[in-house]
């Protein structure tokens, strides 16, 4: 007798979900989105290219790239019907990055962004909450690098320093703290920021290796 193929449910495609009511309408936060789900979605017009600002991700294919990587994370904020209005993506550092020297210990929250049309609904916080709600991070040093040239200062009507403070407040809710590094892109502007969250199972020795790596000293 031929066995039937296992049924793939909506939940399999989007991972855990959280439905929230906002002043922009109902939004579903989907953790661990799979490539198959992304093929039926589209990006909101508030994510894209503007005169003084461009979204980090402007094509759905970029989410597929993240989702298909080892331990790649894609958390999406979805408005009906299947319109991506915000996202949080994470992955291991690119092999050319300084942080790749510590292998799978390091995990980058590469971007959190909310469409210009859906700001003020605390979607950034919801996206981060869904992403970080994973025991996976207890073995990792999760990090984010905020570069002021990526920030939508015009859209938010903030100075770079105010935007930086907003980022600090947002990430600190999830146990992140600012650390210093001589990594050239971070040091290019004082507004730039690197924040980390050290997982509870990360060894002190590894934390020290990371501290030295921040200042260009590779682990022996």
């Amino acid at each position, binding site marked *: 007798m031929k066995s039937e193929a296992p049924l793939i449910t909506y939940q399999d495609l989007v991972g855990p979900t959280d439905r929230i009511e906002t002043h922009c309408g109902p939004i579903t936060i989907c953790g661990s989105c799979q490539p198959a789900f992304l093929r039926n979605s589209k990006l909101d017009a508030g994510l894209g290219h503007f005169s003084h600002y461009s979204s980090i991700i402007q094509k759905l294919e970029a989410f597929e790239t993240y989702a298909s990587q080892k331990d790649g994370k894609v958390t999406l904020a979805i408005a009906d019907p299947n319109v991506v209005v915000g996202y949080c993506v994470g992955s291991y550092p690119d092999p050319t990055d300084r942080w790749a020297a510590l292998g799978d210990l390091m995990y980058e929250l590469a971007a959190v962004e909310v469409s210009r049309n859906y700001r003020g609904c605390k979607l950034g916080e919801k996206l981060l909450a869904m992403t970080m709600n994973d025991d996976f991070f207890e073995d990792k040093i999760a990090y984010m690098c905020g570069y002021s040239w990526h920030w939508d*200062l015009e859209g938010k009507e903030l100075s*770079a*320093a105010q935007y930086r403070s907003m980022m600090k407040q947002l990430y600190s809710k999830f146990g992140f703290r600012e*650390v*210093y590094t001589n990594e050239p892109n971070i040091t290019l502007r*004082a*507004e730039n920021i690197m924040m980390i969250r050290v997982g509870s199972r990360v060894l002190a020795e590894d934390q020290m290796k990371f501290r030295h790596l921040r*200042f260009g000293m590779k682990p022996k």
Partner: protein
Amino acid sequence: MFKDYPKAIVTKDGESVLLRPVKPEDEKALNEFFSEIPDDEQWFLREKLDDPEVLHDCLQKLNYRRTLPIVAVREKDGKIIANLRLHLSMARCIEHVAHLRVMVHPDFRSLKIGSWMILDCVKTAMDMGLEKLFAEFIAGVEDAAIGAALKLDFRHEGVLKDYIKDKHGGYRDLIIMSRDLQSKWSDF
């Protein structure tokens, strides 16, 4: 505001250094720090913190809303190797600006500790919502600090000719530098 402290840096010789706000318990280490500053440089201290009584008094009245003192501490033995003070004003007309002063122990210069402390101060001032930071340096005495400030986007604001008199009666210029803290998108 202080929850990210202590902030670690590693100097080029591999030494781990922690930046953190001063506590009253730092009195002994701070006395040691100021006593190891050469006499010629102690002369230029505005607040006479090399005087143990003045320092004691100052530590008993710590008020981070008026003055935010940050020290760089060598992690392995707790030795204070640099001291920065960010002076804030309670007057509403100048509450958007602050003044910084920094001093690095002579044995730990050329390790960019002063630069890290000024950068930390700039970031902290941004997070406090300040708009402009000022620093005053003595020409011919604090040239390394002037260089560090320039690299951190401070610019020359003015010079007070012969404002400072050194221990031997010679005159020195006071260099005033400033840094804007609230750049808008159009400034980039």
